[in-house]
């Protein structure tokens, strides 16, 4: 739950109001200037009508240098950020040849597979030599290799389901599967903070969409009861199918889903459960099998498990795991399987090798070490930040920790000040998050050492004092108190 100081809320609204007013004034004068000068459109309609790109032109472009920074190395714990400069107040940015080596707190590199790995990389290079970089075909034409078959079995075993199907892109997995699973006459109930891919897939399916309050099983039950009682809109016939879509870890909050309660409610009302484990697969759970293992939910209770390979496995692509009949049906109908190019064989080999390392099948205990390290890193970092007085969201054990900024001016301030001290953070603002709740999202990795974390904490604390985001009172340091007590005892003894 996000607690925001009341005065900060008022000042944030006022800041956005001011930015909005300035933007509208500039647009107004721009319209007058353009009316005087002839347009070069030659009778074609303009691509954007004034209001659609207002946010991009007047708010986003002002702080464009905080987003989309190009990097020139693998996204490991330390990486090279390319410097950019602008001559026209951030409207266009030009790259220079200089690079800064920065601490990486933004990549989804939970288990440290993003950089070259001693087990995975030789096998990936072998697979590149054998199969080449692309299959140049769809799965049904000529794009299914032995690597694809092995990958699907591997994923199904890892996740704990009878069968799995793999796609080349994670976003497409959600937006191409939901229209196939449900159509007009069905009902999709999705969490209010679900990812854009789920929202697009749900809108593309043609089913009726209802939203329940984020992570609140009681509101889900209320919405389910209301919708089942009312039936389809206008005809009031019973729904053909009801699917409830939730995520394992919500990427903007770092919170875990309340899966046991939600699964119990869905069983009671006979709705299907669709779990999107993009951020949680491989990163949480005792052996890395995701949020079901962490929360003790039987995988047979979750009907469709979806996940991506970009976060914990250092590759690309997405998967759907379910019963054999479901996967067989998807292989006949899903457009991402029938018409899209299959996943690249070296990328598939990277996933297979990463899963083998996580499960310990490569003969070493590196997988278990990585899982223990990510958990230790996340818990240590989160507790230290909270002790300093920052407002940090997210549950324990979650490697995603957003630090709340709120005010729109603090977003570029935090980002630029951290970059000056060689720490690269990702800041997120409206419309990816609600208007009030802008944040800096930190993603930890198993390849961050203790020194890296201490440096990051020091830099973030300094920048936090400068920018003014320590909204909670900091805890007094216990060591100083103990030292003062010892000195007090010492002086008494001397006297």
């Amino acid at each position, binding site marked *: 739950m996000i*607690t925001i100081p009341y005065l900060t809320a008022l000042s944030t609204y*006022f800041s956005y109001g001011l930015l909005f007013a300035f933007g509208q004034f500039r647009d107004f004068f721009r319209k007058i200037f353009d009316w005087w000068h002839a347009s070069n459109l030659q009778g074609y309609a303009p691509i954007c009508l004034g209001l*659609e*790109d207002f946010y991009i032109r007047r708010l986003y472009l002002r702080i464009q240098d905080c987003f989309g920074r190009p990097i020139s190395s693998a996204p490991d714990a330390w990486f090279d950020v390319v410097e950019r400069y602008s001559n026209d107040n951030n409207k266009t940015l030009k790259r220079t040849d200089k690079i800064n080596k920065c601490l990486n707190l933004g990549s989804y590199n939970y288990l440290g597979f993003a950089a070259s790995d001693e087990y995975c990389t030789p096998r990936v290079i072998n697979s590149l030599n054998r199969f080449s970089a692309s299959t140049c075909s769809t799965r049904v034409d000529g794009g299914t290799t032995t690597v694809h078959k092995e990958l699907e079995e591997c994923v199904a075993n890892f996740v704990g389901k009878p069968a799995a199907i793999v796609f080349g892109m994670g976003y497409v997995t959600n937006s191409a599967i939901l229209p196939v699973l449900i159509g007009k006459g069905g009902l999709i109930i999705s969490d209010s903070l679900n990812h854009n891919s789920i929202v697009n897939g749900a809108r593309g399916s043609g089913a009726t969409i209802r*939203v329940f309050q984020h992570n609140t099983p009681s509101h889900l039950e209320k919405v389910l009861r209301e919708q089942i009682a009312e039936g389809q809109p206008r005809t009031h016939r019973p729904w053909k199918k009801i699917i409830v879509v939730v995520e394992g870890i919500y990427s903007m909050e770092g919170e875990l889903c309340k899966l046991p309660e939600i699964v119990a409610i869905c069983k009671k009302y006979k709705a299907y459960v669709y779990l999107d484990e993009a951020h949680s697969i491989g990163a949480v759970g005792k052996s890395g099998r995701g949020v079901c293992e962490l929360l003790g939910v039987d995988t047979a209770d979750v009907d469709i498990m979806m996940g991506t390979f970009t976060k914990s496995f250092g590759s690309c692509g997405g998967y759907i795991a379910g019963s054999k009949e479901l996967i067989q049906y998807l292989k006949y109908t899903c457009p991402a399987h029938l018409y899209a190019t299959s996943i690249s064989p070296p990328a598939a080999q990277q996933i297979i090798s990463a899963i083998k390392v996580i499960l310990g099948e490569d003969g070493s205990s590196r997988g278990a070490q990585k899982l223990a390290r990510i958990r230790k890193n996340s818990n240590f970092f989160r507790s230290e930040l909270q002790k300093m007085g920052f407002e940090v969201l997210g549950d324990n054990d979650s490697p995603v920790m957003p630090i709340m900024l709120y005010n729109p001016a603090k977003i570029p301030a935090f980002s630029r000040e951290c970059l000056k001290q060689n720490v690269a953070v990702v800041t997120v603002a409206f419309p990816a998050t*609600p208007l*009030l709740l802008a944040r800096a999202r930190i993603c930890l990795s198993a390849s961050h050492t203790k020194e890296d974390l201490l440096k990051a904490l020091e830099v973030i604390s300094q920048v936090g004092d400068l920018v003014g985001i320590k909204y909670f009172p900091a805890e007094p340091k216990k060591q100083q108190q103990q030292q003062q007590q010892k000195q007090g005892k010492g002086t008494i003894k001397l006297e």
Partner: protein
Amino acid sequence: MYVRAVPPTDLNKNTEWFTYPGVWTTYILIVFFSWLIVLSLFGSSPGTAWTVVHLSHFFVTYLFFHWKKGTPFADDQGIYNGLTWWEQIDNGKQLTRNRKFLTVVPVVLYLIASHTTDYQNPMLFFNTLAVFVLVVAKFPNMHKVRIFGINADH
């Protein structure tokens, strides 16, 4: 003093910010401070300042609530392109708390403006016209109504 920010179930990012705590207070404070600014800039009587604030409030809120359509970003693929901001809030549900508050504010401003100018013409005429237009635009029956096709879609 801290407040809880519970994310609402509104998918429209253009209107969802209105359901968080602190919006009503900010609105009232902005109106009050603009009165102070008008008073200090023009050096007029308090009544004239309230009339100026009332009329500029009318222009600004009519333009942004009832004239401009759509959303200022392209993420939602233009689903709301035919709806004004007033028609978008609360997902189109009528007579919610937010809508009632937004209907009351122009009326209260009108009462303050007319009282402090002692109900004299010509200020009274303009003030009455402004509040009449604003309140009628906010009626539930005017949802998606375009009189004489003004501001309708192409």
